[in-house]
């Protein structure tokens, strides 16, 4: 039984197939990179796994149980948390309250929720910003707040949607470090990323999407040398 399995998933928007017959699996404890050019269907894939979209065909299985068709909050309850590419902080709440709100999912009471939230903020290095109203946070920290909030739901799987985009090199190193430490906690990670250097460095395996279809899957080394991937990113190579 695989841990998280995406099985022959299609997702149509009107006549457009955003995802076409994609199957792959996420193994427990690994970091899986999901890459592809703009519009390849990466975020749609996340939305299908997370429950915002239901697959038009096919299904998603988590620990052998079908989760596609459930609502996002039910999927989160089962242990799959996510972050958003376009960050969605709860703007008029403090950073701490943002995380407390999500910690309530597993906490017995307010005191425990507060403790879990503080732990999560320590982990992501946001502890000193805990009283800031989250609207006022710079982008780098908002991206980390997304991670802190997702972690406070004590997930088994974490879906990270471009948590590195728009960060400066120092913030980038911090975030890479955070993600490694999340994996060390035993949380399985699926990550969408455009930063090739980062994704090649941290991923155990990579799945490549292009125009909604899976064109490659393998270790970073395999992917780097795969002509289909190079073509998808750099355009068609002239044939002699």
């Amino acid at each position, binding site marked *: 039984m695989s841990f998280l399995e995406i099985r022959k998933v299609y997702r149509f928007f009107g006549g457009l197939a955003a995802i076409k017959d994609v199957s792959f699996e996420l193994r427990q404890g690994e970091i899986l990179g999901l890459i592809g050019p703009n519009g390849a269907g990466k975020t749609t894939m996340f939305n299908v796994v*997370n429950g*915002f979209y239901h697959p038009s065909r096919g299904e998603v299985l988590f620990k052998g149980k079908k989760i596609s068709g459930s*609502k*996002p*909050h*039910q999927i*989160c*309850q089962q242990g799959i*948390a*996510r972050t*958003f590419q376009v960050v*969605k*902080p*709860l*703007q*008029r*709440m403090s950073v701490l*309250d943002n995380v*407390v*709100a*999500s910690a*309530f*999912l597993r906490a017995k009471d*307010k005191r425990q*929720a507060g403790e879990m939230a503080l732990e999560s903020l320590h982990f992501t290095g946001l502890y000193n910003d805990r009283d800031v109203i989250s609207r006022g946070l710079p982008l780098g920290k908002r991206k980390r707040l997304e991670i802190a*909030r*997702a972690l406070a*739901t004590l997930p088994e799987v974490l879906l990270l949607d471009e948590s590195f985009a728009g960060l400066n090199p120092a913030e980038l190193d911090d975030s890479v470090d955070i993600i490694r430490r999340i994996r060390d906690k035993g949380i399985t990670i699926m990550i969408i990323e455009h930063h090739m250097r980062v994704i090649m460095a941290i991923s155990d395996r990579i799945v490549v999407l292009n125009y909604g279809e899976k064109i490659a899957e393998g270790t970073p080394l395999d992917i780097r040398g795969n002509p289909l991937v190079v073509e998808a990113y750099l355009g068609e190579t002239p044939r002699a």
Partner: protein
Amino acid sequence: MQSCGVAMATSSVKSFYILHFSLVVFYGCVMNKYFPYIALALLALVPLLGLNSYLMHILILVVMWSVIGMAWNLLSGYCGQVSFGHAAFFGVGAYTSGMLYTKFGISGWWGLPASIVVVTLFALVIGYICLRLRGPYFALATLSIGVILKIVAENLVSVTGGDLGIMIRERSWVEKTWYYYIILAIAALSFVLVKKIIGSKLGYYFVAIREDQDAAESLGINTTLYKTIALCLSAVITGFAGAFYTNYMGYIDPKVVFALHDISIIAIMVVMVGGVATFSGPIVGAIIMVVLAEAIRSIPLLGNAHHTFFGILLIVIIIFLPNGIVGDFSKLQKLLGLPKRAS
């Protein structure tokens, strides 16, 4: 001449300091956690002053409106689901009380407990229909529900008595004192309830839903469930005020209790003026709105146009104090040229 000027200057400085001092004291008290208890004790002593029945009436209306404001604030201020149809819940509560009297011949006061059941069921139906809509669409749906209920109540003559309304012939008391204590107790309970809720998991969830429904959903919050809870709580408190209204006024008809302009919109105004998503905002707003309504109505000729004044007031509030008087208290001090609180 000169000494007179100096005397005037010193006296104005003195009054200025007194004003400043009292503001500081007031602010200190507001921050003080015992302030609500002190305020409640003082309010409980008010009937001993022997105010005339008109002033008692105004006081009762102020307290009733702060209850409705607190209810609206729970759903729309904290949970972000803006309702333009709270008259629906007010009216259902009021008619529950009235119909228990006309149809079953029991005291209208039974309407208070009965309205909890009736209004909850009603809110569940409304929630099932309307809460799948978001933002302005939800507001429009609630607006229409208030209007629909008014038309229904006007035309279901055999059930509601139609436009003739319902008259409660045996009034419980001639004096207003007991009515005042009853609505004060309801207000105190509502205040404590709202405060407890907002400090708990429910409160965090409500605010999370207000700030971003998709984010809330992906954090494992069952947004449909919690929005329904917010709606039911808000509706029940509003319906309670409605049931009280029937017993207090002794007469209701659809035009009064399902009124869009006199109930639904005023509920919004009370909270907007006082302060959205603040504990004391609805109380401050209720004082201002009730007193203002009475004051404007007493102006000859212009009195009938009091809704125009409310409209202008709302525009001014939105431009200068978007968070209301309580929410933007420091901004208000600055606008009025008062010194800032000593810190």
